[in-house]
């Protein structure tokens, strides 16, 4: 005797799909914990020792610091934001290329009750966790080097997390449309990340650059996060309207990137 299924009350699927995907990503990250921690701590230590202290000593000796503070203090908010954005790139881009192209893992997840949009949310959630860790670790090293005060911990980490997550959401939305990854990685690295790192007022105020290339900073989440960070860290001069625009810009990138990523994941995975 078989049951009639026309009115079958199937057990509804869990609504926590995004959490399960994030759990998988974190489980995967745990396998790489050694290199994630080494990179999270080692990278800022090396950076601060070479550029912060080395170049900083030169800058401080010749010009008495930048923006009225020692070079290391000026540099610190930019470095923590850059690290968060790098972390956001890594966690949003590689798992997504893996999921869509290399191992096609997302296609096995979409065969479960998890939706395409939940997969996007889950990857982004794990990205946020990674960015929180990266920012917190970076802040600790900055503090140990005397580049930031204890009071800057929460605001500086929060701004970095916002920037890293917003950038991660944007990367997620873009990668959802990548079908052939040859060239994509070097394109992002050389034509997007490197110019952003160099032309976002990271190592010197954006106003020192010719106006023709200042736009790179204006559209860069790194510049917005750096400006906010300098204001929060050592009280750099930042008009309230500019602070509001920077926060709104990063929030818009986070929300917009997430919404577009959800739609593109859903379309690609359940055509």
């Amino acid at each position, binding site marked *: 005797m078989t049951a009639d*299924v026309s009115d079958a009350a*199937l057990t509804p*699927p869990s609504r926590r*799909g995004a959490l399960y995907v994030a*759990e*998988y990503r974190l489980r995967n990250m745990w396998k790489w914990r050694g290199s994630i921690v080494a990179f999270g701590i080692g990278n800022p230590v090396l950076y601060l020792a070479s550029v912060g202290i080395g170049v900083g000593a030169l800058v401080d000796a010749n010009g008495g610091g930048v923006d009225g503070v020692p070079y290391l203090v000026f540099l610190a908010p930019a470095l923590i934001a850059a690290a968060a954005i790098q972390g956001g790139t890594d966690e949003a881009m590689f798992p997504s290329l893996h999921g869509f192209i290399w191992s096609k893992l997302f296609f096995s*997840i979409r*065969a*479960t*009750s998890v939706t395409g949009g939940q997969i996007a949310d889950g990857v982004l959630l794990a990205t946020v966790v990674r960015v929180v860790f990266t920012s917190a670790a970076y802040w600790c090293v900055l503090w140990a080097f005397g580049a930031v005060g204890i009071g800057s911990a929460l605001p500086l980490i929060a701004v970095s997390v916002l920037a890293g997550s917003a950038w991660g959401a944007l990367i997620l939305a873009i990668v959802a449309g990548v079908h052939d990854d040859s060239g994509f990685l070097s394109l992002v690295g050389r034509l997007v990340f490197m110019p952003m790192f160099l032309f976002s007022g990271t190592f010197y105020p954006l106003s020192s650059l010719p106006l023709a290339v200042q736009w790179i900073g204006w559209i860069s989440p790194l510049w917005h996060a750096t400006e906010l960070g300098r204001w929060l860290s050592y009280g750099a001069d930042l008009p309230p309207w500019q602070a509001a625009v920077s926060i709104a810009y990063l929030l818009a990138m986070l929300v917009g990137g997430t919404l577009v990523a959800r739609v593109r994941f859903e379309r690609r995975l359940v055509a």
Partner: protein
Amino acid sequence: MWLGEPVIAAHRLVKQYGDFRAVDGIDLAVARGESFGILGPNGAGKSTTMRMLTATLQRTSGDLSILGHDPATAGPLIRAHLGVVPQQDNLDTELTVAENLFTYGRYFGLPRAYLRTRVDDLLDFAQLTDKRSAKVESLSGGMKRRLTIARGLVNEPEIVLLDEPTTGLDPQARHILWDRLFRLKESGTTLVITTHYMDEAAQLCDRLVVMDGGRIVAEGSPAALIREHCPREVVEVRFGSDRNAQAAEQLADIGQRHEVLPDRILIYTDAGEADLQRIVARGFEPITSLVRRSSLEDVFLRLTGRSLAED
């Protein structure tokens, strides 16, 4: 005759990509507990049909009901009760064998405590208990396939859908896999299997449809399809590729029907041995000869004019 509502029901199901109709208005119904096959050559529309049945590909038109629900509106609900074994093993190569099962179970929202036991059971079912801590990369093709099938069972699905489950496996690995699928069938799980191997369809399926060019060209049990479309036996004779056509003309009165393939002549008959003797008595000396029972391959050849092996 149905004992209840079908768990899968499709009516005039169409999937169109631009001008190309991959699935062209098919009707099918699968009963609970049935083992249902979709047989056809590559490009027949099997995998596209399968993706629609797994609620991961939206149809262009027609009606489709899976477990009483429309996949266009209830995809996640339906998928929560399906076990899907895709054509390619998309296992997580960075996780171990056991972790693959555990992680997949979590996607269905299954509790960790339950999964610890469930994973053990599935490893046992897939005969992979001694490989539980091995990385997926180190497994053989057959083992990966069994793991993919075990993964598809983690949520105790009502329907298990397998797309080309044994393609690319060696004969021994295929037989091990068939044994596992038989056990599933015996346990009452509804199976939907696409394959281009007629022996697989004959072994595993209670009932099947033959697809060609996006359409269903025949439907029935393997035995009924053979009975309906072919005489009982086939005499296969080879005279060399340059002589087959000429020989076929001279043997036209032997058997009920001939198929002349590039490498051999198939003579359909109810008396294979007797007809082979008649061929030899006429002075023909085939390079090789064989009398066998008609199979689904012959049904396919009859219905489409092509051999499954040609595709």
